């Protein structure tokens, strides 16, 4: 799976995710990526793209849950919201990247690793796997 989240200088948030799914999946199987709110979600508060085992991500409505925490828990940071959601999914099942309307960036996962990268206008620049 691949995905990207961004906020532009005008404050617009967006997310996109694309995948081939799982090796040896059943023909006709649909994963989390195209299920809005599961693997992909954005609103005026944040944008999220997830990766991992689609069935787990759908069950836990991962992307929407991050946005919901941002919406309903006062003063919660994006990093804490993402960490809380990822921690609630069985280990080895999920990773996500997210950006918030405040320009926060987080990349959280409970797998061994996640190919990931981020950059901000403020100078943060990261590329990593583990």
């Amino acid at each position, binding site marked *: *799976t*691949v995905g990207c989240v*961004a906020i532009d200088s005008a404050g617009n948030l967006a997310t996109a995710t694309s995948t081939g799914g799982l090796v*040896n999946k059943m023909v006709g199987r*649909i*994963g989390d990526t195209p299920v809005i709110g599961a693997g992909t979600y954005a609103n005026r508060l944040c944008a999220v793209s997830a990766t991992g085992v689609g069935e787990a991500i759908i069950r836990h409505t991962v992307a929407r849950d991050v946005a919901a925490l941002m919406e309903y828990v006062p003063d919660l940071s994006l990093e804490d919201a993402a960490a809380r959601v990822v921690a609630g999914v069985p280990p080895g099942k999920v990773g996500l990247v997210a950006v918030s309307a405040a320009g926060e960036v987080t990349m959280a996962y409970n797998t061994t690793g996640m190919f990931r990268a981020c950059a901000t206008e403020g100078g943060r620049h990261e590329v990593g796997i583990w």
Partner: protein
Amino acid sequence: MGWAIALHGGAGDIPRSLPPDRREPRLATLRRCLDLATAALRSGSTALDVVELVVRELENCPHYNAGVGSVLTADGTVEMEAAVMDGNTMRCGAVSGLSTVVNAVSLARLVMEKTPHIYLAFHGAEAFAREQGVETKDPSHFITEANKERLRQAKEANRVQVDYTQPIPKDDNSRIG
């Protein structure tokens, strides 16, 4: 506040012993995507345009599991899917079951922008792709030798695998229970 961007190329059981020839091409693609994205954001591109731009690049990289390089179904076919969402308007588009569309993410965006719907799948999505004139290729274009081998191993082990599940040594069944 300013702009910000994050991208991923999949999560999974990625061993720290991943050989350089499998690690470096993927890292190089991440760096290239980051450069593309930051340049676009600095020049005033919208977040929506940038996420589509980046995901198209990742789809075109055979080392990642989307577009060319997509993993295979039990029948040895590709069934690709993608989604896009605009945070301000909450407009969104999604596609599933694609076997010929080169950049599924762009078709998802067309669903968002050109239809009254959110989600098109399988033959309906393929027909919409033809109607919109997006680039398509024979399904064989998306299938790599590495993924044929991964499917063979997964079938042998009788399991499904996330993106970076490692091959199982012939003399080791500890990871399959």
